[in-house]
């Protein structure tokens, strides 16, 4: 995570990394959305209280390369999360996001994702960004399309979700050259 990251997303929305002061708010939003989120994310099962969220934030602080553990804030309200994890030697980043149900449908995931993609191509030297979304997660897949990412395949049983289940994931990719064309148009 990058403690000093802060990106204005328009309409009073801001993307910034979580701090341990946010642990209680993060737990409350996850807890309120538990059933929705568990369809797509196994980490919901690990969210048991505010201190489990603080421990997760702490575990991410050692990775200073990734643009991850970010919250999307609308005013003082936590609306969701958006991450771009950078690992390995392939100059590739992995995008991920989730939203509180009350904030779905406002374009927040798309704007936050676009902001992180812009950042990683403009100043982090990445060559490729990818996103993996549950085959049936139509909202996430719609975000990938709005970001002009290209569908590249279906990874069978590659997503572990809540309750010890697995789902097929569609993989989307965007290469820096395609991003330049997208930004220009």
């Amino acid at each position, binding site marked *: 995570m990058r403690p000093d990251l802060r990106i204005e997303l328009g309409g009073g929305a801001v993307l910034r990394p979580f701090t341990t002061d946010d642990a209680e708010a993060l737990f409350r939003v996850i807890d309120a959305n538990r059933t929705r989120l568990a369809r797509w994310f*196994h*980490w919901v099962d690990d969210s048991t209280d505010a201190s489990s969220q603080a421990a997760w934030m702490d575990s991410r602080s050692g990775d200073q390369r990734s643009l991850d553990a970010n919250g999307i804030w609308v005013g003082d309200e936590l609306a969701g999360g958006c991450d771009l994890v950078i690992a390995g*030697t*392939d*100059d*590739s980043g992995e995008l991920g996001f989730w939203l509180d149900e009350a904030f779905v449908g406002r374009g927040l995931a798309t704007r936050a994702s676009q902001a992180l993609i812009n950042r990683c191509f403009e100043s982090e030297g990445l*060559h*490729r960004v*990818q996103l993996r979304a549950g085959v049936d997660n139509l909202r996430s897949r719609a975000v990938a399309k709005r970001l002009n990412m*290209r569908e*590249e*395949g*279906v*990874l*069978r*049983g*590659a*997503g*572990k979700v809540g309750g010890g289940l*697995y789902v097929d994931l569609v*993989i989307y*990719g965007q*290469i820096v050259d395609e991003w330049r064309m997208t930004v220009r148009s």
Partner: protein
Amino acid sequence: MNPIRWDLGEGLIVRTYLAGDAQELFDLIDANRERLRPWMIWEPQTRSVADSLAFIQRSTSSATDMEGNGVWLDGVLIAGVGLGIDTMSNSGEIGYWIDGGHEGKGIVTRVCQRFFDFAFDELGLHRMELQAATDNARSRAIAERLGMTQEGVARDGIRVAAGYLDSVSYAILEDEWRARRVPA
């Protein structure tokens, strides 16, 4: 992770690298540079025995991954195999390379089969993946012999010395692997 040591018979031993293997590992990479360079970014990054030693130390100190394993034939190192483990998705990724003088004999396939048994039976993984550059026909043939399914192509997904290569994603699921092992 705990070190492994498997005797596959016919003089083949697979085991986790030890610090004392650094010279032999470096020498084998050095002898195969031209063959490795098109596919493996770590080839140009391996310039000295110290680099191989650093790789061995880094890979064997990981709490989850098992990236540093060698294959010995009659006491001579001939290949390397890495197993990466993603605890979040309960899946693994295998990677391999072999000395030019020993390819074409099915050795990598046999070693991968043992790794898959290990991954599914002992680690309890749900899925094993393999990434191969689109043009790496030999690597892709191994994936196919192992019964893996081609699932997609991550465009420019692999960085190598010359730039970026499209990466074919292969995978096999636990139940598919078990079904293959049981004769029909």
